[in-house]
């Protein structure tokens, strides 16, 4: 349940407004449609894409009427409520404004891209990525949950990587895309941390709750850290200084991408976030200094840098950074009226900058060139496009009757009244005018350098007007610039009011959108900016000389330096940690285990809390001494391998005795059987491995390893002791002991646990066993390595099958199988069961191979191990599923008492079928393992035949 909504409210909201999540989901899911429609031609592809975007737009418009009355629509459903992550969305004025920009300009870009991209470009892939981005961006602006917002935020970074790098064969596109991703993704990580802190402080990740917790957040001691982290996310995304450098390099993207991502949407995500969290974070000194000053510096710096760009799109990129700086500054000033101006400028900038990018794309498309030193005098070749571009550029410069003028005028008016910087507040209007001068100057350069200023120089193509559909989006956008600029009250006012209200979070103070406010200071500033900018452009020669001598800094070098530094450190770290030596890894693992173990024990009071010790009896002491001795000798003689195997067998036997001593008969039986099989396997393997290990490691190395081993040993001993001196917790034991006979129908509780209570675990373990066997067969299927010891039989064939063993083995088979059957049948009530019986059976069969001729035995023992394993698994699964037929959960067991004439009264439990499955798997596994290692070599087979 999202916080703040009651159960019934939630349901109603869900029923009525569950269309809101569809707004981002339609493009996200619809991203497939252009890929499918791509086969039916370029027009079909464009139509399919436009249909998806239109669906989102219509849905948005359909839901929008109440928004203008200040209603906030919410919808969604729970996702991971334990983590505070809900799939919740909200539609308020700000979200509506951004939603309209994203879908509206998105539609124009779809039309534009259809005619911009050439036949060689894969239109389907482009449109799919564009829709993916559109959906992610809509998700960002509509999300009500901070974590959900972040998810979409990262999705915009990822999809923009693919869009910027769309021409993937171009190195600059790949580099630019990678840089954009690196910078924005690092910001995204900071943002995640910031959101986590913010959610923690506010007590919820739902925006509805967070927005109401503004005072709590601002007075919290973590507020500064939270703010800085969130700002890092916003500033990287919105290309604020010093993270601005990725945006000019992202201009390697196709122009439709720049027109979409770098004017109206992606770079606006950062300022959107500032606006979204304005009621929570703004209106403090720290906010003002961090946001306001960053915005101011970015505004001035980028406006200055834009003037010196020779690349048409480079100029637009820096001017975008500058305008984003202006919006950041307006939000940073933190008053309701500056926030209104900021929102207004978001709209205006999106409209005129998108049209400018598209115009630049048309010029690039029709001339094959973007360098303003070559592009001159294009007016006579494409007068209509030139008029459109000049109008848009005039809007960018803030010329009256165009939309840019209105928001710039609002900005100027606000700076006049600012007192935030105390005695030097008079600097504000001056700095604002300076920024205005630069912006007029670069707009003038865009107009004059491209469309006038002599004739074109060495253009690859003869310029001409573009196809009408390529120009149509520009015409629409420029028309909006004019409409908003001339009649703001009848066009943009309601949307602006709705959006600004949700930013400010309270009723707006009165403001006027009128064109004419009389002769006042802001108008004077506008006039100064226009004339100053024109004069600056006029005298540009001097400025360019200056610019050539002191070129504006490009962060690319610093970025790549740091990137390479990071890669170098990572590489060195990898070489240290991952040097290809298993020994090295194992010792690292052991060191880590020891360190973590010691650290854990250090904290607790492990070795206190006594209960009385048991006394040591002489037999146990003897067994333990033997165990210690054999274990020590295994290590001591480890280089003489045959001896070591013998000693290891001794350890195993002693361990089995310990099991007997401490009331675990089942374990003792299993251990004994396993011990025999393991020893046989090790002996078989020794034939193919060197019989002795040479002394390789240095003394120092051995001391180091011994030290590590002793530390590990002490740790484990301390842990064991710490547990043994505490009283046990008997709940689980009591449950199993009490229900074993009644619920599982068996007196051997260990066996009942295995085949009944924890049957699903046993199924898993039996499967692992089977997989291990198949793995071994596969590993050795290509043959064994050449033997290292001479087979005694090769030298002396008559010794091949010792008479006594051969004669003894046959009757022994029957006896052993009988023993296995006995162990199996009694397993449910007495020590025994499928595991043990399986091991015994496998040993009985293996003895036949050892005692007799391999071929002779194979011919008579037509057992396919893999089939055994498979049938065992099938049997277990069938037992489990049959219980399902009767409506019980998987692997539920049942049992019945049966009376047979001679055998008497005994029980049959369905668990017995389960145990039979285990038995079959164990037999199959052990046989497969033994035969894989013990099969006769080619030479012997030859000799035999």
């Amino acid at each position: 349940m999202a916080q703040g909504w009651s159960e019934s409210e939630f349901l109603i909201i869900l029923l009525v407004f569950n269309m809101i999540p569809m707004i981002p989901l339609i493009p996200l899911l619809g991203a497939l449609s252009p890929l499918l429609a791509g086969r039916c031609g370029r027009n079909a592809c464009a139509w399919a894409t436009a249909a998806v975007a239109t669906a989102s737009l219509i849905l948005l418009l359909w839901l929008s009427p109440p928004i203008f009355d200040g209603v906030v629509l919410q919808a969604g459903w729970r996702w991971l409520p334990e983590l505070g992550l809900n799939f919740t969305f909200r539609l308020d004025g700000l979200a509506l404004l951004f939603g309209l920009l994203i879908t509206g300009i998105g539609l124009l870009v779809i039309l534009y891209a259809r005619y911009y991209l050439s036949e060689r470009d894969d239109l389907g892939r482009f449109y799919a990525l564009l829709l993916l981005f559109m959906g992610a961006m809509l998700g960002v602006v509509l999300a009500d949950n901070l974590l959900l917002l972040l998810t979409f935020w990262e999705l915009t970074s990822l999809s923009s990587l693919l869009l910027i790098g769309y021409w993937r064969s171009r190195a600059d596109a790949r580099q630019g895309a990678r840089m954009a991703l690196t910078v924005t993704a690092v910001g995204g990580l900071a943002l995640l941390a910031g959101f986590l802190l913010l959610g923690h402080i506010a007590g919820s990740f739902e925006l509805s709750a967070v927005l109401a917790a503004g005072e709590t957040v601002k007075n919290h001691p973590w507020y500064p850290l939270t703010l800085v982290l969130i700002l890092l996310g916003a500033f990287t995304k919105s290309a604020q200084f010093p993270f601005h450098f990725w945006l000019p390099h992202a201009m390697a993207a196709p122009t439709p991408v720049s027109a979409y991502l770098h004017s109206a949407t992606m770079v606006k995500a950062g300022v959107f976030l500032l606006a979204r969290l304005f009621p929570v974070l703004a209106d403090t000194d720290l906010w003002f200094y961090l946001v306001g000053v960053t915005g101011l510096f970015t505004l001035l710096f980028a406006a200055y840098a834009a003037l010196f760009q020779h690349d048409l799109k480079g100029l637009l990129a820096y001017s975008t950074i500058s305008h984003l700086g202006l919006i950041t500054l307006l939000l940073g000033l933190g008053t309701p009226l500056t926030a209104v101006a900021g929102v207004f400028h978001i709209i205006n900038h999106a409209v005129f900058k998108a049209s400018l990018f598209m115009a630049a794309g048309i010029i690039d498309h029709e001339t094959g060139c973007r360098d303003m030193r070559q592009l001159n005098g294009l007016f006579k070749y494409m007068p209509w496009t030139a008029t459109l571009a000049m109008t848009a550029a005039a809007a960018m410069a803030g010329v009256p009757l165009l939309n840019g003028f209105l928001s710039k005028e609002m900005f100027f008016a606000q700076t006049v009244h600012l007192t935030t910087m105390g005695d030097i507040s008079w600097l504000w209007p001056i700095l604002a005018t300076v920024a205005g001068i630069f912006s007029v100057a670069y707009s003038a350069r865009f107009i004059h350098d491209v469309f006038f200023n002599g004739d074109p120089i060495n253009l690859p193509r003869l310029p001409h007007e573009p196809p009408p559909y390529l120009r149509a989006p520009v015409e629409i956008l420029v028309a909006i610039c004019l409409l908003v600029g001339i009649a703001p009250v009848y066009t943009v006012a309601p949307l602006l009011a709705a959006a600004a209200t949700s930013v400010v979070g309270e009723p707006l103070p009165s403001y006027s959108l009128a064109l004419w406010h009389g002769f006042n200071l802001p108008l004077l500033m506008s006039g100064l900016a226009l004339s100053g900018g024109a004069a600056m452009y006029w005298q540009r020669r001097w400025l360019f000389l200056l610019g050539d001598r002191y070129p504006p800094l490009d962060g690319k070098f610093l970025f790549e330096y740091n990137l390479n530094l990071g890669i170098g450190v990572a590489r060195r770290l990898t070489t240290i940690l991952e040097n290809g030596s298993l020994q090295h890894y194992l010792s690292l693992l052991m060191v880590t285990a020891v360190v973590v173990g010691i650290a854990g024990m250090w904290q607790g009071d492990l070795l206190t809390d006594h209960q009385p010790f048991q006394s040591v009896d002489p037999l146990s002491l003897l067994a333990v001494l033997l165990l210690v001795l054999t274990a020590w000798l295994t290590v001591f003689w480890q280089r003489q391998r045959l001896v070591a195997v013998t000693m290891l067998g001794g350890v195993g036997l002693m361990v089995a005795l310990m099991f007997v001593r401490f009331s675990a008969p089942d374990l003792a039986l299993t251990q004994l059987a396993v011990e025999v099989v393991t020893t046989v396997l090790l002996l078989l393997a020794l034939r193919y491995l060197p019989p002795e290990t040479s002394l390789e490691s240095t003394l120092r190395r051995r001391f180091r390893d011994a030290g590590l081993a002793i530390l590990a040993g002490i740790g484990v001993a301390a842990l064991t002791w710490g547990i043994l001196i505490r009283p046990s917790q008997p709940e689980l034991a009591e449950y199993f002991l009490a229900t074993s006979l009644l619920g599982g129908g068996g007196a051997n509780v260990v066996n009942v646990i295995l085949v009944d209570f924890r049957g699903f675990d046993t199924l898993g373990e039996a499967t692992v066993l089977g997989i291990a066997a198949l793995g071994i067969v596969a590993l050795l299927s290509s043959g064994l390595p050449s033997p290292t010891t001479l087979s005694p039989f090769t030298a002396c064939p008559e010794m091949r099958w010792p008479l006594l063993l051969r004669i003894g083995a046959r009757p022994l088979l029957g006896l052993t199988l009988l023993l296995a059957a006995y162990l199996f049948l009694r397993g449910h009530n007495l020590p025994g069961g499928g595991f043990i019986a399986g091991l015994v059976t496998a040993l009985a069969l293996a003895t036949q191979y050892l005692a007799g001729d391999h071929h002779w035995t194979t011919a008579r023992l037509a057992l396919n191990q893999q089939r055994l394993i498979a049938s065992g698994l099938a049997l277990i699964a069938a037992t489990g599923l049959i219980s399902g037929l009767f409506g019980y959960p998987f692997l539920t067991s049942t049992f019945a008492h049966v009376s047979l004439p001679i055998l008497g009264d005994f029980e049959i439990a369905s668990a017995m079928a389960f145990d039979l499955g285990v038995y079959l798997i164990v037999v199959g596994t052990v046989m497969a393992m033994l035969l894989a290692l013990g099969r006769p070599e080619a030479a012997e087979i030859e000799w035999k035949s």
Partner: protein
Amino acid sequence: MEVMIAGVIGLLTACGVYLLLRSRTFSVVLGLALLSYAVNLFLLAMGRLVTHRPPILEPGRTAYVDPTPQALVLTAIVIGFAMTAFLIALALRARRETGSDQVDGIKTVDSATPL
């Protein structure tokens, strides 16, 4: 008794770890086997050291050892065996591929020459 068992488990661990860190596959197999013994005994010790009270239900008897660790150890023994066997197969295959039984497949002069 408790101290003694804890000591034994510690010793088995130490021996196992030392062998695990050797450079030949066979030593690693031995080390893993020793470590399995240690782990199995350790798991058994979770049910505490109990004498003459096997978890086999008999009429009239009320005191039993905790059966849960035993059930865990039983499967652990079998799985441990499967792991040992797999490791042996891996060692043989590695020797076939690299001609050496060194864990990193490094050929050394004194590595046994095939007959």
